[in-house]
């Protein structure tokens, strides 16, 4: 075997230019696969980090909520959620896995701004959260992405009626000026047109239920949120809008309201027992998800609770779609690179066989078997592949390091703000091994055809070859 490798290596050196070109094709293939794979890995990791920061790893719902609850969230409240949260937090198995466990309340309703002569309303999609838990969740960064959001002073546990809205909703509710936002004014003929009786009804209801609207607290605007309680009665609360943030997706941006959990519960449950629609679990490590999920199922069974658990990929279908898309592109790039390497190696090895036909005849006459000839040329293909793939790996790691330290940033789909652009190559040994192995294997397969042709040569014909 050592003689085969020695001869293979020296023949590669003997045809330096040809070997270099073929090795370069392999190197380019590995570089492309690693850089794209590294970028896709970064996307997956960032997306997972963002998703887990926003929605945790697992969310406990009342059975049926995930599929049917969006139409009537209040009907799917979890009874006795406080004791359940405590049970989860103090559980011997779950406790050590958990970073944050926090209740949330989802709701739908109509938001209105009738202050200072305004007359604007819009349906909203709300979420009630515990601000301090939300801030802790945003610190989660298991994969060291650096995508950490500092605590938001505009939204804290102290301010029980302060909340945040999507930038689109703020624009529609004419909150741009009071919030000092830079957004365009609505067309005048539309702005002058009132929504009519609906807005008047909301304003009346808000005035009756909330003790008057349009008062500004701390110089911040207030809006009225109208929703149906779990019992079906209309209910209104005032929300002081502490800020407006872009949400990345227009539909969400035009509907989003984030408010303190207590305020959301007050709106949805009124004076009745306060419940929540979800209990969010953020784990310390993503790999604990299956174990945590299994333990939760066991816990619910023990308590006789009719609850279900969904993970972040189920709550954010976008995550799975992005993974699928990038995986498909990676596969496509791998196929293209594989084809290029295949043809380059076949071409080179065919030329090598042709040029060395006489040599093949000589060593066959000396007693080398057909298999020995076959292995000789396969070894050469494999060696060219291995050298090219190794060079490509080193090059990809260098380029990735350059990108990672280049201070580049970009706005990923669904994101509102730019994030640092990274390419994960050096810290992804699995990816390196996969790309390297695939292209070396392609080189071996490509060498098979010329190697077989060489092995099948008649000794006499090969010796006669000039």
């Amino acid at each position, binding site marked *: 075997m050592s*003689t085969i490798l*020695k*001869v293979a290596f*020296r*023949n590669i*050196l*003997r045809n330096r230019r040809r070997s270099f070109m073929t090795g370069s094709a392999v190197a380019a293939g590995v570089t492309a696969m690693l850089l794209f794979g590294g970028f896709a890995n970064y996307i997956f990791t960032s997306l997972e980090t963002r998703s887990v920061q926003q929605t945790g790893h697992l969310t406990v719902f009342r059975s049926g909520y995930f599929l049917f609850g969006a139409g009537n969230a209040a009907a799917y409240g979890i009874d006795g959620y406080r004791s359940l949260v405590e049970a989860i937090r103090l559980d011997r198995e779950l406790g050590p896995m958990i970073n944050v466990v926090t209740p949330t309340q989802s709701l739908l309703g109509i938001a209105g701004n009738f202050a200072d002569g305004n007359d604007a309303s819009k349906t909203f999609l709300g979420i009630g959260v515990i601000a301090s838990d939300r801030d802790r969740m945003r610190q989660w960064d298991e994969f060291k992405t650096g995508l950490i959001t500092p605590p938001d002073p505009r939204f804290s546990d102290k301010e029980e009626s302060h909340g945040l809205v999507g930038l689109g909703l703020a624009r529609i509710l004419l909150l741009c000026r009071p919030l000092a936002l830079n957004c365009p004014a609505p067309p005048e003929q539309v702005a002058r047109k009132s929504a009519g009786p609906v807005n008047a009804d909301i304003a009346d209801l808000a005035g009756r239920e909330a003790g008057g609207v349009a008062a500004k607290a701390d110089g911040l605007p207030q809006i009225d949120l109208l929703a149906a309680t779990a019992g079906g009665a209309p209910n209104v609360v005032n929300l002081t809008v502490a800020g407006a943030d872009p949400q990345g997706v227009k539909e969400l941006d035009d509907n989003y309201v984030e408010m303190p959990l207590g305020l959301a519960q007050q709106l949805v449950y009124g004076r009745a027992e306060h419940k929540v629609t979800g209990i969010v679990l953020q784990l310390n490590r993503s790999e604990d998800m299956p174990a945590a999920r299994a333990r939760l199922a066991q816990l619910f069974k023990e308590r006789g609770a009719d609850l279900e658990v969904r993970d972040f990929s189920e709550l954010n279908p976008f995550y799975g779609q992005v993974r699928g898309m990038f995986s498909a592109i990676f596969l496509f790039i791998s196929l293209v690179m594989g084809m290029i390497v295949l043809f380059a190696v076949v071409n080179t090895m065919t030329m090598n066989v042709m040029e060395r036909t*006489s*040599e093949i*005849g*000589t*060593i*066959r*006459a*000396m*007693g*080398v*078997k*057909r*298999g020995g000839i076959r292995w000789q040329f396969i070894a050469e293909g494999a060696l060219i592949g291995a050298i090219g793939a190794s060079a490509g790996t080193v090059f990809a790691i260098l380029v990735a390091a350059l990108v990672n330290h280049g201070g580049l940033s970009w706005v990923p789909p669904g994101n509102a703000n730019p994030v640092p652009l990274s390419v994960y190559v050096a810290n992804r040994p699995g990816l390196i091994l996969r790309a390297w192995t695939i292209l070396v294997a392609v080189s071996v397969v490509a060498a098979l055809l010329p190697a077989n042709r060489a092995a099948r040569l008649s*000794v*006499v014909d090969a*010796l006669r070859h000039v």
Partner: protein
Amino acid sequence: MPPVVRLTHVEKTYKAEAIEVAALRGIDLEISPNRFSMLIGASGSGKTTLLNLIGCIDTPTRGTVEVAGQQIGTLSDDALAEFRARNIGFIFQNFSLVPVLSAYENVEYPLLLVGMPAAERRDRTLAMLEAVGLAKQAKQRPNELSGGQRQRVAIARALVKGPQIVLADEPTANLDSATGAAIIDLMRRVQAESNTTFIFATHDPHLMSHADQIVTIRDGMLIDPTPGAAA
């Protein structure tokens, strides 16, 4: 002493498109061991074909070829390769050294094929290089050697494993006369020392003058086809 090569009613026909060309026609031949034997004849007479059959790198269309007591028609391709590796050495007109191997590695190569242990391999290779006067050139590649030196390496390579037969096809054709003469002397000496059978296909009158046995071939037939008659 039984012959080291025995050909019985051997015919070899090549097909060129639809035309059959008879290269050998009914050859009966025996070659005695430990001799310096020559196959002579004009170009296209069939001597290289005959040499290929004796060297077990080709098979007859009809008839039997027995080399070193082995009927070669019964062996598989791998078994033939194994047989060649152990019993037959080749010296080619154009030297045919492996260009990426040094003189030492070229000579060592046949010993690797028979699985000789490293220490013995090294000793035999060095001794063989010494015998052909190339100990100092051991590390040089073929392109760094003269024609004569290359042929010496080829002779060392053919003899290093101690084969029963060494086949040489026009070994002096690509050498000047002085170098050719030196190579012939060298082959004569090592043949005598190693008691190996040398069979040549040649036109070289100087080489023929050293022959123990001459077999003349014309149009695929032996001039005197009586087995051993040329001895």
